[in-house]
């Protein structure tokens, strides 16, 4: 299988968007569509201008972003769309109306009616097509739309990357993102767990600076899966691509629709692996505990049973959440206990409905608390030297079905 094609699919879903005008009425025409299991789903994310026109209120000012969804059900049973799958912190239509009406009762009544009418309403009966909006937290440039549809005894999951208009350029006019990342001869598909482990343990310990001369944060994460298994898991648990970090390969590949300048001065630093900066950077959404957990992923030339293998780095920024913390002059940018963020992700993913295997293996190299290593920004960190491997699957997986790979038993 061509990695380049997979990569393109990761970026933009399986369908080619048809049009990219930013006028306020044609979001449906740029919708990304997928069909599977008797379901046809389409999604499009509205720009600030489009949502203001449609909702009659500047939703983006409260960082609310409507996603248009249409579901055609050709199965034999009713389906329910699950809004928390798109965004665990989504906004009920009535709540958004209250936010926009301020305290004006007439305005509230009008907006409430309007927002309620625009909302996606369950169920989707057999043979029917239902469309409407789910109100999510605002993303700029690119939005991952995760659709979980549940019926009696079955569930389907679709992930789509949608473009948010209003950015310079015309992404689909260019085939540049279909550029091959790896030549077919470079790609190795592992079907043997021991060989896969050996290959993963042979990877470098750390990401580096641009010319590879200095070691940065430890590569403590391996994510196995792609658009329909790993990404749904991350999105369901509130992970979202960070706007600043659509850089590196994906930015280059998609440079005609993402404004390069926008990111040139971004505060998030680039780290390097395989000779390029991270392909994806994500952060946990909003104000919950893992808000400042950042993860960077690079697509590797490996496959595991045909699935994409991403090598990654996860760490947590600490310091500002607690209300009484003292001002301090000696701060760390990252939690020096980098294993904590790695464990937190692993535990969180157990609740994602998609984690099917987890394991730990060597490769990072241990660093003791009293002899910490430093990343590129001279933040000290210590670690047991392990990297975690998370394997995702598309079929829903219960907490009691997660397999533990018999590799390293962590002993901290």
């Amino acid at each position, binding site marked *: 299988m061509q990695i380049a094609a997979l990569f393109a699919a990761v970026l933009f879903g399986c369908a080619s968007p048809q049009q990219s005008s930013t006028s306020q009425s044609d979001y449906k025409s740029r919708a990304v569509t997928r069909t599977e299991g008797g379901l046809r789903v389409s999604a499009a994310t509205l720009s600030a201008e489009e949502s203001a026109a449609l909702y009659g209120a500047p939703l983006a000012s409260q960082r609310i972003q409507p996603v248009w969804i249409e579901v055609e059900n050709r199965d034999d049973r009713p389906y*329910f769309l699950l*809004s928390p799958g798109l965004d665990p*912190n989504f906004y*009920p239509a009535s709540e958004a109306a209250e936010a926009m009406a301020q305290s004006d009762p007439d305005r509230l009544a009008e907006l409430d009616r309007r927002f309620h009418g625009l909302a996606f309403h369950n169920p989707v009966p057999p043979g029917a097509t239902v469309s409407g909006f789910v109100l999510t937290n605002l993303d700029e440039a690119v939005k991952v739309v995760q659709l979980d549809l549940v019926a009696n005894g079955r569930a389907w999951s679709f992930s789509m990357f949608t473009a948010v208009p209003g950015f310079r350029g015309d992404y689909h006019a260019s085939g540049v993102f279909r550029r091959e990342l790896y030549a077919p001869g470079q790609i190795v598909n592992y079907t043997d767990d021991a060989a896969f482990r050996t290959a993963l343990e042979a990877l470098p310990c750390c990401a580096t600076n641009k010319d590879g001369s200095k070691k940065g944060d430890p590569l403590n994460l391996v994510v196995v899966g792609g658009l329909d298994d790993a990404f749904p898991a991350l999105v369901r648990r509130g992970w979202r691509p960070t706007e600043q970090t659509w850089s590196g390969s994906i930015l280059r590949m998609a440079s005609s629709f993402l404004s390069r300048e926008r990111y040139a001065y971004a505060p998030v630093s680039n780290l390097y692996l395989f000779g390029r900066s991270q392909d994806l950077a994500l952060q946990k959404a909003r104000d919950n505990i893992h808000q400042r957990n950042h993860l960077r992923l690079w697509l590797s030339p490996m496959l595991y049973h045909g699935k994409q293998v991403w090598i990654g780095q996860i760490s947590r920024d600490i310091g500002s959440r*607690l209300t009484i913390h*003292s*001002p301090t002059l000696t701060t760390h940018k990252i939690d020096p206990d980098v294993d904590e*963020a790695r464990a937190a992700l692993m535990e969180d993913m157990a609740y994602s409905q998609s984690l099917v295997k987890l394991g730990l293996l060597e490769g990072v190299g241990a660093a003791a608390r009293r002899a910490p290593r430093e990343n590129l920004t001279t933040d000290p960190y210590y670690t047991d030297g392990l990297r975690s491997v998370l394997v995702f699957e598309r079929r829903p997986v219960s907490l*009691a079905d997660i397999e*533990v790979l018999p590799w390293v038993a962590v002993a901290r």
Partner: protein
Amino acid sequence: MSPLATLALVLALAGCATWQAPADMSDAGLRSRAVSATSQGVRVSAAVLSADDTRRMFGTDLSGAQVQPVWVEIQNGTSQPMWLLRTGTDPDYFSPLEVAWSAHTTLGGSVNAAIDEHFDKLGFKNPIAPGTTRAGIIFTNPERGMKLFNVDVLGRQTLVPFTLFLPVPQQAPAGGATAAQIAFLYPASELTDYRDLGALRAALERLPGAAAQGEPLNVVLVGELEDIGAAMVRRNYHRDARAADLNQQVFGRRPDVVLRKQVETRVPSTWIRVWRAPVTFEGRAVYVGQVARPVGGRFAPADATDLRAHADVDEARNHLVQDMMYSGGLDKLGFARGAAAGARSDGLRAVLFFATRPLSLADVQILEWAPLVKP
């Protein structure tokens, strides 16, 4: 201000950097009042730390940080390593070093490093090797009174879930409580057990439509309180009863349990108030309740005390159903009539059946009861 005066002020503000590593970190007191449970070869014990315990073990009072430390011990009697999944205990738990940060002092250099090391040492560490016991602290968000404490212990293709009711020191009677003590107890003669889903539905449709105060009873939860609690905690619902909740009366009494979803802005969010009904299904408890969210939602001021229900209670009900699909605890779902209908309500109540065994999205059985129709 002179440089010297500035320095003096900084030192004064810094509180002299006097943290001392506590000498007494014994968990004997916690162990003696811990609440325990055993299942599938795993034994879990837990106790909420008092302010005194916290000062004694951490050398600082964390209550101002809005952190509630809980001591947990897990005895692994199985033949495989097990992991405690902290996300299942509190999706917004704090890491040890995050909490340590709150105790840092200005110009504290080596003292701050010692604080970090101390907090990290006391934090709970995975995994729990076969045949071993591990104890440590989990830093959770505070709950008052009786804490609904969920512990999910993960092994190879195994999950052993526990739900404990932990007394919060100085706020609840010692010794813990069982679900039966928390929920209302009916004499056996007043309970009707149903074995047939159709008969259960009919009984549920005969339950009161609203509380005496008029808010509709738009949800029914079927299952033991432990199973319901596990599903709710995994989705960030916690026990949190306020005055407005306790004014609601059904069956002539105030709600048995009130849960509230914790949202990022920390303003009051969706609540579930439940009353045990004089009905069981296959011997399992049945609760009838109200699900709603307060007027203003997340955009209300953080100190808002207006906890009136927003009129669109159907929306809150439907979103609860969706949330529970991800809980791993939802077994069956149906909609029955019987809730007080209103201008904004279809009069249906969502009936959610909970199970102990973990379930995925594809395992939920959706009953063909009353059809949910687009409003």
